[in-house]
């Protein structure tokens, strides 16, 4: 089935606007702890999640919001969960890293790499209870250095599990440039376990859709697991309040207070050779620029998808205003106090 680009764009936009609201609420202190957005990953999520059926399962990492919205989780319940409310998706117990929608067989985790085994398990259940159904695991490229997803790849191959492993490769894991901690390349790595492997540009929703279609079909047909390596950029950095981003945007404010202790430490008598110290200093001072360079040169998957819709500006405009209005409504409803729901 060819991708319905309008539907995909709508799903992506819905997610983007929702997460933009989340960002606001987090900034206002109404959401606690960390907040990892999926902004920049929307094409990957939409291209894959849009093709899931009843009975398919999703194992999601710390950026679960886009996939859950696209899968059809109640957005009000989701937002209320972030707000820590009794009427949230998980009654306020989970928060954004531990989201659970049992009727959709969708679960998220804050443990990097854990989605690999979890999806393998979902797929095993599908094999026994829901033939033709599949499981999808989402994780980042940094997670591919954990044993869990590597073991899970192998397990899925030898048990011929109907699972699609989706590696969202944004090149960074928190403040670490992932190539500096990753040997070889990840497509080869997945392939070496015997998984059917495709590499795609994760900002191109149609490309994702097509790759996913092939992988999902294989899985449904009993041909076993596959691995999608999809490149993308996290438009809001690792999490809200990301220091690397902040440092690039407001170098003086962020790097200023760091400078003195850094300089003092770098000038201490005993330590590494001067050359090594200089390398370290340069690395510290430039890492945020390197990390944000990708964001500055980003291809926003929404812009890209939108290009294809400009031919029908009326429809586009109406779609966009509708989604915006709906999102505003969601936020308003979510913020309404509910009886018996303690406010944060």
């Amino acid at each position: 089935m060819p991708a319905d680009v309008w539907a995909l764009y709508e799903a992506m936009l819905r997610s983007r606007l929702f997460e933009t609201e989340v960002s606001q609420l987090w900034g206002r202190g109404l959401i606690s702890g960390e907040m990892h957005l999926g902004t920049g990953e929307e094409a990957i999520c939409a291209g894959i999640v849009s093709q899931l059926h009843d009975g398919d399962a999703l194992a999601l990492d710390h950026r679960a919001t886009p996939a859950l919205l696209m899968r059809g989780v109640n957005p009000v319940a989701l937002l209320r969960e972030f707000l820590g409310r009794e009427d949230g998706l998980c009654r306020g117990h989970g928060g954004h890293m531990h989201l659970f929608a049992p009727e959709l067989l969708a679960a998220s985790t804050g443990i990097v790499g854990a989605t690999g085994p979890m999806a393998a398990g979902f797929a095993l259940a599908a094999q026994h209870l829901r033939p033709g159904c599949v499981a999808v695991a989402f994780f980042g490229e940094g997670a591919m250095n954990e044993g869990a997803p590597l073991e899970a790849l192998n397990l899925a191959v030898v048990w011929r599990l109907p699972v699609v492993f989706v590696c969202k490769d944004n090149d960074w894991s928190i403040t670490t440039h992932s190539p500096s901690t990753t040997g070889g390349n990840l497509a080869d790595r997945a392939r070496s376990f015997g998984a059917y492997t495709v590499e795609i540009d994760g900002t191109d929703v149609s490309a994702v859709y097509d790759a996913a279609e092939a992988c999902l079909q294989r899985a449904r047909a009993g041909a076993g697991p596959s691995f999608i390596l999809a490149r993308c950029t996290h438009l809001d950095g690792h999490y809200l309040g990301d220091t690397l981003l902040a440092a690039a945007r407001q170098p003086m404010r962020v790097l200023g207070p760091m400078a003195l202790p850094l300089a003092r430490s770098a000038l201490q008598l005993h330590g590494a050779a001067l050359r090594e110290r200089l390398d370290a200093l340069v690395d510290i001072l430039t890492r945020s620029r390197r990390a944000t360079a990708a964001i500055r040169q980003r291809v926003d998957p929404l812009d890209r998808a939108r290009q294809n819709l400009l031919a029908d500006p009326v429809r586009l405009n109406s779609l966009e205003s509708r989604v915006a209005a709906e999102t505003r409504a969601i936020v308003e409803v979510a913020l309404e106090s509910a009886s018996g729901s303690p406010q944060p």
Partner: protein
Amino acid sequence: MTRVAFADAIDEVVAERMASDPRIVIFGEDIQLIRRNLYARFGARRVRNAPISEAAFLGAAVGAAMAGLRPVVEIMMADFLTVAVDALANHAAKLETFSGGTWRAPLVVRVACGGGYGDAGQHEQSLWGWLAHIPGLAVVVPSNPADAAGLMRMALDHDGPIIFMEHKLLSEIWLESLGRGGRTTVAFDVPAAGARAERLPREWIPPGTAAVLRAGTDLTLVSLGVGVHRALEAAEELERQGVSAGVIDLRSVSPLDMECLREHVARTGRVVVIDEDYLGFGLSGEIAARLLESGIRPRFARVATDGTIPYARHLEIEALPNTARILDACHQLLET
């Protein structure tokens, strides 16, 4: 009538339930030969050989349980849980709370545990207290075939993750492959009443119910697994010495049957916990705390594994709770 062996008692319950419940799937390393009778009946789809990837297949068991199966996943030995415990501690155990009570993972983790056959401390740990520390995990440890069957019945009905621990001195298949290896030249202190039973009950054992194996008025011995048999031996010896010692078989570490313990300890005022898991920060401490919390302030002693279990048989015997150590502890307690 032939007597039923410990592991066979468990397998029979599993088989009976597998026959009626297609959601039960078994997997683990070498499982097709270890549980060959189940394999021959239920085939390779439901009795699956797993790669040596505990983190992956225990994690998959959690996922499978969430998605509707009832996996009975086998980790060869408790010691190896260390490479896979994230699946239990951060996932299975937390699912119910995190999901606001809407999702559960009904999962039985079957694990061999315990020592007494000279395999040293990376293969003889018990770790039940370590597992029970994590809220959301149930842990049971049968001391005989009948209880093993009854507890497995319960485990297969349990709606969350439950660790079912099988002591290697009781489970012939493990003792044979790890300790004896076909030899007639080695001997182990296998408690006969623990390894085989006359017949098996058809009932389940409700969660968190201890069994009172012996009433006693002077002191209460509390144990589980093989320790129960050491405690019974000690109690018999104490009886010869004119001391009346009760013996409680906990059977379940989490939940703990505190009602039973309170009732008995309140009466005797003296309690000795015999625990093959490590001494510190575990089961024996928990019993002390709960007794104190409920206002019972007994004379208290414990006989547990203190330190890494050494290889040599004579050192191992000393390291694990044995009858002599139990008697010592009892005598000291009786003097105070």
